[in-house]
């Protein structure tokens, strides 16, 4: 008999019967053993979204760590906001983006959102 039994019985008696109210110990250890743990391995799909050729500078600098959707799904950002993002990639995530490229990168990111990069 597990230690949890009196508690479970009490809850049932009280008519509470809320199986998941707080972590309650599973009866006779069955719950734990019932969950079989077996090795897993998966293959992830390859990405299908790419940036236009004219945004090559963005592809080169911005798709090493995340797929292009990270950039394409952003709401319209002002040039200053894009500049902040580029700087964040460098300081927070140690992206090796040459600072001299920032103006060109920001312009390319803005053009991407404007739809002027095709």
């Amino acid at each position, binding site marked *: 008999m597990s*230690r949890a039994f009196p508690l479970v019985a009490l809850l049932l008696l009280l008519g509470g019967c809320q199986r998941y109210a707080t972590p*309650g110990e599973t009866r006779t250890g069955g719950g734990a053993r019932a969950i079989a743990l077996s090795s*897993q391995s*998966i293959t992830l*799909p390859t990405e299908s979204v790419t940036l236009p050729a004219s945004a090559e500078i963005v592809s080169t600098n911005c798709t090493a760590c995340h*797929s292009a*959707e990270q950039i394409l*799904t*952003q709401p319209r*950002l002002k040039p200053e906001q894009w500049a902040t993002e580029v700087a964040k990639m460098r300081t927070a995530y140690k992206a090796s983006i040459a600072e001299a490229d920032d103006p060109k990168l920001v312009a390319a990111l803005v053009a991407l959102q404007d739809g002027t990069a095709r």
Partner: protein
Amino acid sequence: MDDALRQQIGRRGALALGAGALASSPLWAQSLVDLGFSENDGRRPLTDAFPGKTGMILQRTRGPLLETPMAAFDGALSDDPATPNDRFFVRWHYADIPLAVDAAAFRLHIKGAVNRALSLSLDAIQSMPAVEIAAVNQCSGNSRGLFGPRVPGAQWGNGAMGHAVWTGVRLADLLDRAGATGSHVKFAGLDQPPGDAPWFAKTLTLAEARSRDVIVAYGMNGVQLPLLNGFPLRLIVPGYYSTYWVKALDSIELLTGPDTGYWMEKAYRIPTAPRASVVPGAKDFPTAPIGRMLPRAFFTKADAQAVRGIAMGGDAGVAKVEWSIDAGKSWHAAQLGRDHGQYGFRRWAAVLPRGSHTVAVRATNVRGITQAADPIWNPGGYMRNVIETAKVTV
């Protein structure tokens, strides 16, 4: 409140659900979903391409960000509110995530300020007393795409959340076995940063970590976790945002002071101001790490057949869910489904009078915290819990 709700309805035209989210045919049968964002930029493909996942909204392929369509949460009042594992949202920061885990070789390390450093196999963990708890796992940035003004980051609709029954062992039991000392507990998993980026790790105070509701789970809705949701072990911190629910957990480190790493000091921080809200564009305000969740109620269906959804209390149980069809002047109690515990989803349903309505729905938790109609704003796009509305003719 009434004015705010009226304004919100006027401005956003009750778009909270997103057009696609309410489509009558099953969402997974369509190829696109529309999350209803302000710049008309909410269209996303639905995908079955990720192993063990079906009909997910594709936010980002690498590292994977998959959102649950609202229709996947829908059900009658009497239905179990658990989100099926194959529809449960997926959120990794870095692209290098564990794609293969050998269950026999895996070890959970407990180290740092402990009397006995431990290296535990899954067998050893499963031989400890098992506990289970139903709890909502919600991303800190859930609903970020609905912020106004918009903020950068993953543009989630409302589906970066899910309810599961988690089975595992109490973290306190593991800490006792190791003879934990110190003041903070740092958690990290098998995912790895690109280059020199900071390792992903999150930290709780020892007191928070010792809460009886915090568990290290190996089961999700009665089976092992999908790799994409953190197999083989995931930290479950009921009532707290998902950022602390470290996936593929393999390291628990006792610290003698706060964690000064990037993911605690710089990321996932909210304004200390009430409702974590500041004036749009504000900078240099005091911040704190994000923590406890807030009450929310969502529509999963709003049509002539049914007006219903799910609610959560945040860090406390749902006390009531109410609906209004007069822009918040009067509120009426919704019917509630079964209580699965203070941290779970609670189903709700409303019976509306005939007519065409903009219906608002709000949840109140047992602490008396309720939802407000005026949206909050912060630059991280965190903690949105504004009252949702939907248009319906019954």
